[in-house]
């Protein structure tokens, strides 16, 4: 066959293509092209921005730069709250897989060998294998931490002794189960804080660091057990002033100090949920805004494997600001030490509170409340166990600002002032005070079996004569008495944030969270409103010695003492220190007594210390003024006593005022002068010390 033949064959069409078919094909192609063209046009020009954004989203990531929380310092710039490194020991469960598997198989074998009829629960065995393996590692870890094989110095021995019953010597089985359920790809925490915050203040910081150092230097580097470090809040003085300082807890609430656009893109980009810390109590809560600073962030492009590639933009974090408190660490420590020394019959410290103020400025030098808690133990994680433990002891309550108590005989100052201001009695009037006073058919007794005889204002305050007060109270009447108490602001909520000082960004209403607001200054209306019937003369007598319905807080009584010391009616307390503060006391008026009357009150309080109910707490060579009180209250349906002391120092030209309260129990002997007095004395002594130190410097 020639090549021509071939050509011929090919050139002959098998069938002619008719024009309409051609047109159809062309049309189809045209439609197709138009479709593709429109599609491309839509995608490339109209949708382009969205698609670019979407692509960016998939290839971008946000990295958080958490801020450092600000410090809290006392008036002398001693650090009360700071941040420290926390070291934790973690186990990489993936790395332990082989070991766990071997253990598991051994357990299954042992179980099968038993030939019991009970069906083997493999899940439980698996968990048991995990626990066994981790416990084995923990044993090694503790072997290193304890330095079991080495001679130890006494301080080291102390550390080991304190750690002997640490709960972290064994794996927390429930935590492990939860970990396996929720976050098994992460490392499991075996020891959450190698410096063991519960040991703070029991052993030196350096000794506490020894566990960390021993682990780092002696535990084999390669292996499934690693050490990790991060920063957490630290309270160097432990439980000191915990109610004022507060603690921090985890939050997943995004801090609200970003521009809204960023927040939206954060939500889109961030894989991990935000976790940060937020103040939960005390100043950490009320001044969270100041302390927390603001977070920074970085926007990165990432590779398909998720690694960071290129930094697109960043926003630096801003460190939180420092807050300076008016507290004086030494006085605070002295107050807490003295309070802790007051024990019940079982040897536990009694619930109590103590406050010391600067008379002129109202700055709080010490404010203590027992029982308390150790915020260091809450810093890494608020455990339900510890939370409940505090709850059970009543440690959450700040008794100095939230505890409502009958002020007892300290209230006799009000009765005396009311008597003199109403003109019913003068400073040198003498009343005959027997062993009791009959009001209606009820006998109101003196606390001294034979009475006190001839009593004037001064003597009354020194010896705390009840009958004098019953009589003056009845003379003045309940309305004037209540009016006088209100004039001194015993029912006014204290510690309100001063908007002029703290600036607008602080939204919290009070300087310390939720101070008491339901103080009671009783009168006829009040008694009716609580459904207790009509006011009687007996109620007046009771009120005149600070018992009955009346309720106020230790802080109020400290402010009252400061006001008396200044010869005014109100003292506005504050927890913040300002060296340039111009004393200002809201709604304060002159006390409204003439010089002799005021002198009588002050002299009476001095005599209370020198020869009266508080004579056991004299400080040789130093004169100060006080008024004790012992009021009855009902605990578990039985009578118990509240011990009070309020006062100021020095007697001439007063600088500080104080109030102490101790909640007696049913079976304790709790008396104002004897029980509460030493705490007041300790605070005054410490104040004197620091004053002397300052003048030396």
């Amino acid at each position: 066959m020639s090549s021509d033949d071939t050509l011929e064959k090919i050139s002959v069409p098998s069938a002619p293509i008719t024009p309409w078919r051609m047109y159809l094909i062309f049309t189809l192609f045209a439609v197709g092209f138009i479709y593709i063209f429109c599609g491309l046009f839509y995608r490339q020009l109209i949708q382009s921005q969205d698609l670019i954004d979407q692509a960016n989203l998939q290839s971008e990531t946000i990295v958080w730069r958490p801020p450092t929380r600000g410090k809290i310092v006392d008036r002398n710039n001693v650090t009360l709250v700071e941040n420290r490194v926390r070291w934790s020991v973690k186990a990489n469960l993936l790395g332990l897989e082989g070991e766990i598997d071997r253990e598991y198989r051994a357990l299954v074998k042992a179980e099968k060998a038993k030939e019991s009829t009970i069906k083997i629960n493999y899940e439980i065995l698996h968990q048991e294998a995990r626990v066994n393996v981790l416990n084995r590692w923990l044993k090694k870890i503790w072997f290193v931490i304890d330095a079991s094989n080495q001679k130890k110095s006494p301080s080291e021995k102390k550390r080991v002794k304190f750690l002997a019953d640490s709960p972290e010597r064994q794996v927390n089985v429930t935590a492990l189960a939860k970990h396996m359920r929720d976050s098994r790809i992460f490392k499991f925490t075996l020891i959450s804080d190698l410096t063991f915050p519960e040991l703070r203040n029991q052993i030196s910081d350096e000794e506490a660091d020894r566990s960390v150092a021993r682990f780092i230097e002696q535990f084999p580097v390669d292996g499934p057990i690693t050490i990790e470090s991060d920063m957490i809040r630290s309270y160097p003085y432990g439980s000191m002033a915990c109610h004022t300082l507060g603690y921090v807890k985890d939050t997943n609430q995004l801090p609200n100090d970003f521009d809204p656009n960023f927040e939206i893109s954060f939500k889109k980009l961030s894989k991990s949920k935000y976790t940060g810390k937020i103040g939960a109590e005390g100043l950490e809560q009320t001044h969270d805004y100041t302390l927390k600073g603001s977070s920074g962030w970085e926007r990165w492009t990432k590779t398909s494997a998720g690694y960071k590639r290129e930094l697109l933009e960043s926003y630096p974090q801003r460190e939180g600001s420092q807050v300076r408190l008016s507290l004086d660490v030494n006085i605070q420590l002295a107050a807490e030490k003295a309070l802790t020394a007051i024990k019940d019959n079982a040897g536990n410290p009694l619930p109590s509170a103590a406050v010391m103020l600067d008379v002129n400025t109202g700055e709080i030098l010490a404010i203590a409340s027992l029982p308390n808690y150790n915020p260091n133990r809450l810093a890494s994680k608020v455990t339900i166990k510890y939370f409940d433990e505090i709850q059970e002891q009543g440690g959450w309550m700040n008794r100095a600002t939230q505890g409502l108590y009958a002020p007892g005989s300290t209230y006799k100052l009000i009765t005396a002032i009311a008597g003199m201001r109403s003109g019913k009695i003068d400073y040198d009037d003498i009343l005959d005070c027997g062993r009791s006073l009959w009001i209606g058919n009820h006998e109101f007794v003196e606390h001294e079996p034979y009475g006190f005889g001839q009593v004037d204002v001064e003597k009354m305050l020194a010896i705390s004569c009840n009958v004098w007060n019953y009589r003056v109270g009845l003379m003045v009447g309940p309305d004037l008495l209540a009016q006088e108490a209100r004039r001194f602001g015993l029912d006014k909520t204290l510690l309100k944030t001063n908007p002029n000082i703290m600036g607008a960004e602080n939204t919290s209403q009070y300087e310390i969270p939720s101070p008491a607001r339901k103080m009671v200054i009783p009168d006829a209306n009040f008694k009716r409103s609580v459904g207790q019937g009509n006011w009687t003369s007996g109620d007046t007598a009771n009120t005149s010695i600070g018992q009955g319905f009346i309720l106020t807080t230790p802080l109020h009584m400290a402010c009252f003492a400061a006001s008396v010391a200044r010869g005014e009616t109100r003292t506005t307390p504050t927890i913040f220190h300002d060296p340039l503060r111009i004393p200002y006391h809201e709604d304060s008026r002159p006390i409204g007594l003439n010089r002799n009357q005021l002198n009588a009150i002050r002299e009476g309080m001095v005599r209370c210390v020198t020869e009266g109910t508080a004579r056991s707490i004299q400080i040789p060579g130093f004169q100060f003024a006080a008024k004790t009180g012992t009021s009855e209250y009902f605990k578990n349906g039985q009578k118990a006593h509240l011990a009070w002391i309020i006062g100021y120092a020095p007697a001439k030209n007063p600088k500080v005022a104080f109030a102490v309260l101790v909640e007696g129990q049913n079976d304790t002997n709790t008396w104002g002068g004897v029980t509460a007095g030493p705490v007041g004395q300790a605070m005054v002594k410490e104040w004197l010390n620091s004053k002397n130190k300052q003048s030396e410097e």
Partner: protein
Amino acid sequence: MNNHQKGAKASYIALAVFILIWISGTSALHRFTKETFAEFQAPALQIVSKGGDLARYWELKSRSNEELIAASRDLARINAALELRIHSMDDIRRENTRLRENARYTANSEFLTVVARVISRDSSSWWQKIIIRKGRTDGIRPGSPVVFSNRVIGRVSAVHLNISEVDLVTSPTFRCTAFLIGDEKRRIVYVRGDAANSLSPNKAKVTAIPIDYNPPTGQPIKVLTTGLGGVFPSGLILGEVDGGIRMSTDDNYKVADLNPAKDLNMIEEVSVLVPQYPTAHEILLAPSEKIKLEEFK
């Protein structure tokens, strides 16, 4: 199918079997193999090092008398100064012993010092180590710190019969705690070797530096051992912070680079501080068959 192809197939199967045996084999087998091959090579290392010493000897021998006289004169001066120092040290040691007796606290970290020559250095991005000419027979035990005068060089990582391996401060397997000078609160920081880049100087990393740490101005920031960990005596120099302290990108503390105290790749001689009693570290490193944990409790 010819013999060659059959052999190829068999060899792959044999390889698979061997890998299986190796993986499932006990750690004793692994250790034995490693130890055998290490000891096999040890004599060569020794010979080379001794050869180096010999060369040095002949080099010294060729010096002129004048040179030697000058050198011995210098040495005599140094000797006199050192003798004085030894006297004062003796007093201090006595005082120390007396105080310890008073406090009823015997030191737990009495060290036996073994001086050793460096045979060879070995470094990559992932490890920096030296091999020294003293081993098990000289009493060296794993985990012992290695120093040069008052500077930390590293730590013994493995001991053979006559030679030992030392992980340098810059090796990622090295870690210890330290204080930074100028930190009055003496808060511990974490020092660990850093995976280095080839062709660039080796460094270690200092992490967990508190944010409020203020370095002293006008002088290098020295990093000193804490003595808390029970391995290194306190106050030895680990090195100096290089290039300033910066905020960590991931954590809320500061970090810095550490320049080791001595040019670790030039060092010729080191001292190994062998603790009198085995440390916990050593016991944990020891093969479990030899020492049981309980024995030390």
